[in-house]
């Protein structure tokens, strides 16, 4: 707000004072939100780290098991067993709010299926193939959980950045500029009052000389 654009009147001064008060309370709330989000972020970062480790671990386990199944039973048997799988994993998306920030809540359904529901015959299907199927189901479930945590973490990070920019804007630009405007108006009003007093004194003096 440039001082040149300001009309130095009492009503503007009152308006500016009101805005300063509002900005200061907004600043405090934003600062609290930023601090709260940072605490949330550190919590979620720990979870994300843990999830990444679990994804890596489950992936390595699943790959080892599928490689063993491919070696022992052959690619043909593994491919054929995969063809028999009839249940498609479903993902249910919901929302939850963290300090007003909407983050996704992802739930995986029908990922881990019992061996009798996998579609292939239990009697002749190799245990190696079944173990590989189970390991991949576990990996998929972990990845869905990881997707929720990672998305939440990214959203929180973006929100922290946004809130930080707003806090800084209020602290270093909006509030100082309004305070400057307030000071300018007060100064101008005082000056106008002084000018007025001098003008009145001068008029009084002129009137006294005429008499």
């Amino acid at each position, binding site marked *: 707000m440039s001082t040149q654009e300001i009309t130095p009147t009492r009503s503007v001064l009152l308006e500016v004072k009101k805005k300063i008060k509002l900005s200061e309370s907004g600043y405090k709330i934003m600062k609290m939100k930023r601090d709260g989000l940072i605490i949330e972020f550190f919590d979620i970062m720990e979870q994300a780290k843990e999830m990444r480790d679990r994804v890596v671990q489950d992936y390595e386990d699943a790959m080892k098991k599928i*490689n063993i199944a491919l070696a022992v039973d052959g*690619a*043909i048997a593994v491919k054929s067993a995969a063809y*028999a799988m009839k249940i498609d994993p479903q993902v249910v998306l919901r929302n939850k709010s963290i300090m007003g920030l909407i983050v996704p809540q992802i739930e995986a359904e029908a990922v881990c299926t*019992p061996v*009798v529901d996998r579609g292939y*015959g*239990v009697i002749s299907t190799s*245990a190696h193939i079944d173990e590989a199927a189970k390991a991949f189901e576990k990996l998929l479930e972990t990845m869905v959980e990881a997707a929720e945590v990672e998305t939440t973490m990214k959203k929180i990070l973006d929100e922290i950045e946004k809130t930080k920019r707003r806090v800084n804007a209020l602290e270093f630009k909006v509030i100082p500029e309004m305070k400057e405007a307030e000071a300018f108006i007060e100064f101008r009003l005082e000056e106008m009052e002084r000018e007025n007093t001098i003008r009145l004194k001068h008029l009084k003096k002129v009137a006294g000389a005429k008499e």
Partner: protein
Amino acid sequence: MIRRKAKANYPYAVARVRGKKRALIKQEDYSKLMMMELPEISRFLGETNYQQEMAELGGRFDGVDLIEHATYRSMARNFSNVLDFSQGELKEMISAYLSRWDYWNVKVILRGKSFGADKDSVSEDLVPAGNMDEAYLEKLNAMGCCEDIIEELEKRLSSKFPEAAVEAYKQLGKLNGIEEHLDRLHYQRMLGSITPSTRAKRLFRNFIKREIDTSNLETVFMLKMDNVCADDIMRYVVDGGLQVDKGMATRLANAEDVKAMAAELADLDFYEDIKPALESEEISLREVVDALHRYRIKETEKFSHLYPLSVIPVIDYMVHKKLEVDNIRIIARGKVSGLDHETVKGLLVI
């Protein structure tokens, strides 16, 4: 059932399979294969019994897929050849034994069809090592839907599929009921084809019954580890086992947990063979299955020398040929997927 039309040609068939067995990869060659890279393994196979198949399939596949398909094709040709030169009751027993490959192929076709895989891709995966020749399997593969295949199989096998299984396929697309019926049918007909008139045939019958034992044990372990209830486990137990029959299976299925189930196995003849796999803190299904597999191979080795002029040397050859194909694939796939040397060595059955 066996129809005694032609006389079984045991001396000729046994002499032929002994020759074939001598041509299998030797134990010491596996150590060399373990040290080779994939192109070297391919070259090695191209210079052995697999030369023809490697050359035939070289244009369609490469790398480890070529090795897998070529070894399967070689095995299918050898088994068909054995079936061709066998006669009489020997042929019927071998035919019943090889029907496992028919059921295997039927399952590949049904699964591919239900998934919507294209005909050529399913065709590539067939291993015509049984009684159903390539033309018949292609005929099944060319059929429009699984219902038509099921109808055709009912005629060919003279066996009706359980209505519940067919209905489950129609409603939910699940093939497990159909597949389980085929597995039961295989063992039922296999046992039916062996008249226990001689000691060799009784031994062969017991060998098949032992196979049912190990298959039942594998199934019960798999389901128990998946926390399936006892009644449901019993639905998957195959009749005709030597020791793991319905009674034993019920005891195992009703055991409190896997540990308690493992303790129930102490009375089995082959307990000592699978004991190390059952003693670990957390029982691994894979280790149990591998131990059962090793036991089966040991049994074959043992009984193959007992009756030189019987079906046993022929079955022994078939088991060893399948083992060779499995071992080559394990080494090749192990190399490609970067499995460590010790894991690959542990998977091999030499």
